[in-house]
């Protein structure tokens, strides 16, 4: 038995960021994960830190705050953990969104205009400028917008770095420990029962990504987080030919869609190691993890529309994972008034890497009784758009 101020369920990017923020804020923190650190969604994506795919609203506000934090974090973690720690591969490389059809061009330019209204640096570029930014890009460019604020990080290393930093400041990280239920006293959650015994804490934070609904259910509350499957292809290493994160303009539509059926749109980028990552697919099929040739083939075909040279490039690996999807496309962050002592930091869908630092800031401020930098109300589990899914 161990007593903590805060127990965090989930050692992914969000749990790691929240742990570090809270431990720096003076809380005693224990992080639990039923598997290994960075073993779920956090190591199954591309490491996106994006503003380009978000329209004006609460998610964009969180993205802008988080983007700023990431720049500070990347430098701060490197300084703190030293050169012996694996490289975070943080790169503020910028994103280039490309429309290849006239209809796509109109939608993209209109979307970028609304983003500019919200303060995002979204710069339309000509086809010639796009070719200069990305020499191997398809010449079929109807419109393109450059987003200097988009960045990339190695998501597993980023998670481990946040955990390592939290650990150095006193947090305890326990892997292979499964939460089995809550410990409730006088109507308040005062800890969790686990496969390794009870862990008492004043606050319990669910940061279990797509498995958050399951964890929440074991604690007695309904939480509408569903798995939305994705597949990423990895090519063989090669000299860098893709400089930005490059998306086709369909990506924005796919992110914002609620459809369960398979959708794919191109997200193509190089990594520090020299591989090219090709995403992305979105599909809601529960926790069915199989990777199918049809999805792989569609991803390959769409990536080749953006970069025709990829046709001759070998793909050597495919990996898949589950995004934590919330029906109204906003993360759930903050205390749960249905069960005092319970907090959520989950439901970031495909944006958890990018949004983790802002999420941690919100939790840190709210738990300390301070005013957060951006309003927390839009992310509350009690928001009207989730009423149906959280009651009853």
């Amino acid at each position, binding site marked *: 038995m161990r007593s903590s101020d805060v127990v965090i369920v989930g050692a992914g990017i969000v749990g790691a960021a929240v742990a570090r923020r809270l431990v720096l804020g003076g809380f005693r923190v224990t992080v639990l994960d039923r598997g*290994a650190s960075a073993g779920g969604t956090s190591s199954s994506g591309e490491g996106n830190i994006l503003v380009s795919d978000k329209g004006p609203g609460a998610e964009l506000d969180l993205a802008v705050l988080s983007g700023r934090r990431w720049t500070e974090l990347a430098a701060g973690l490197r300084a703190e953990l030293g050169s012996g720690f694996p490289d975070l591969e943080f790169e503020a490389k910028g994103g280039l969104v490309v429309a290849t059809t006239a209809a796509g061009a109109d939608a993209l330019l209109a979307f970028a205009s609304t983003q500019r209204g919200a303060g995002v640096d979204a710069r339309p570029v000509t086809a010639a400028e796009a070719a200069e930014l990305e020499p191997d890009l398809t010449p079929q460019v109807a419109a393109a917008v450059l987003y200097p604020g988009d960045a990339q990080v190695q998501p597993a*290393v980023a998670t481990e770095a946040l*955990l390592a930093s939290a650990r150095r400041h006193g947090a305890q990280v326990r*892997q292979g420990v499964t939460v089995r239920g809550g410990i409730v006293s006088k109507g308040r959650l005062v800890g969790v029962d686990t496969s390794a015994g009870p862990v008492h804490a004043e606050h319990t934070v669910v940061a279990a990504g797509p498995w958050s609904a399951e964890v929440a259910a074991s604690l007695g509350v309904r939480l509408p987080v569903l798995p939305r499957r994705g597949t990423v292809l990895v090519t063989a290493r090669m000299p860098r030919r893709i400089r930005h994160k490059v998306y086709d303009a369909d990506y924005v539509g796919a992110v914002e869609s609620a459809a369960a059926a398979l959708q794919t749109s191109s997200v193509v980028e190089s990594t520090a190691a020299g591989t090219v990552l090709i995403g992305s697919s979105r599909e809601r099929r529960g926790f069915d993890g199989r990777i*199918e040739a049809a999805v792989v*083939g569609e991803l*390959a075909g769409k990536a080749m529309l953006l970069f025709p040279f990829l046709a001759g*490039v*070998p793909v050597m690996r*495919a990996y898949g994972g589950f995004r934590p999807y919330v029906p109204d496309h906003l993360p759930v962050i903050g205390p749960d008034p249905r069960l005092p002592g319970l907090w959520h930091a989950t439901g970031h869908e495909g944006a958890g890497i990018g949004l983790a630092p802002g999420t941690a800031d919100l939790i840190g401020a709210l738990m300390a009784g301070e005013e957060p930098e951006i309003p927390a109300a839009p992310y509350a589990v009690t928001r009207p758009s989730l009423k149906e899914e959280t009651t009853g």
Partner: protein
Amino acid sequence: MRSVDVLVIGAGPAGLAAAHAARRAGARVVLLDASAVVGGQFWRHPPAGSSAADSLALQHKWDGFTALRAALTEDPGCEVVTGAQVWAVDRRDAGPPVVHALVGPADGGDRRRRVFEPRALVLATGAHERTLPFPGWDLPGVCTAGAAQAMAKGEGVAVGRRVLVAGTGPFLLPVAAGLIHVGATVAGVVEASSRRRIARGWLPRPHRMRPKDLLAKSAELGGYVRTLAAHRVPYRTGAAVVAAHGEDRVTAVTVARITEDWTPVPGTGRRVEVDAVCVGHGFVPRTELAISAGCALAADGSVRVDDGQRTSVPGVYAAGEITGIGGADLALAEGAAAGRAAAGAAGQTAVGGAVSTAEVARHRAFAARMHRAHGIRPGWTSWVGDSTVVCRCEEVTAGQVRAALAETGTCGLRSLKLSSRVGLGMCQGRTCGRNVEDLLPGPLLDAGRMANRPIAVPVRLGEIATTPTE
């Protein structure tokens, strides 16, 4: 999409036997193999019309092979597709998976896509070699025993002029004999297991082995031993190559005595001048297709099968080395059983002999003796220094892997791979996966994960791309 009664993947001994048995039971069969010719590693040989030296002298049970090959290639009910790389299998909710192959020379630009929807599937994908790393093993001139044998058998070429063969297992003997046959001088065969362990592994209750099997095995191994003796090749046990030396390529190796658990004995290192060294430490089942198909694995990483070679997935059978390393005789017996059962699952009534479970069991018992005598012992990790490369594709050293683990504190292989890059290269952990797990101090929460490879072989994007539909 082509529907077929029985699809067999892999045309080594197990796959050939499976295809043959399925045909005899009346099923229509398609047999796929990635090589240009059938036969697998056991019966590797030059393609017809090749100018490579005749290497029939290196073959065993060759008549059995040519009979199987003739029966299948001359049979209109069996389509043999060589040069067929299966790159993905799609698991279905009921029944065997859909199989996606590319057919044609791998370096050519125009491989043909073929998709099969079998009523029953036999996986006979064999094994790849296990090689334990040591300082200098990444130098040119150091190769796997299997690569040396493939060059000798398939091209009639020796990997070097003066070659040392090292590692463990009876496989080292035919490799050495093959090298001699193609003109190399074999500087020695170095077997890691001690004489005592070999005796203890092979010899208990010899009466349980059928005299016929014992004689056959003894004759085969005896033939190699006579070849080695005739060429005055020293055979040493309880020793290992613990370092390779050289600038641009290997020029010498250090051979040291090792204890029963394979820890090198200090002060026993001896330098041997060579221009090539072949190492082999047994085999690892090639399970990626089975894993993608959803087949359950046994604790040792092989595909779990029942007495009828059934895997955990209905309609999917496995035979040969992927069910556990056991050699060609076991592979042939398992293949025959799998082929008959698969034909039955595809709606054919099995004809011919009863399912030879007794024969399979006998060969498995023999394989168990081999594992007792030659299985890898944990002390090997002590000959790996911090600067020894463990992952050759990504050039990651043992020290870097250990440091990444210490820095991050993770208990997960996935995180460790991404923070150290170990196992992320072209071979996707086939060479280093198990070695890395052995080198780590504590148990992992996701052990064996490197064997999961949804894309089974590298394929060009253009070869698998589908036209986007709007």
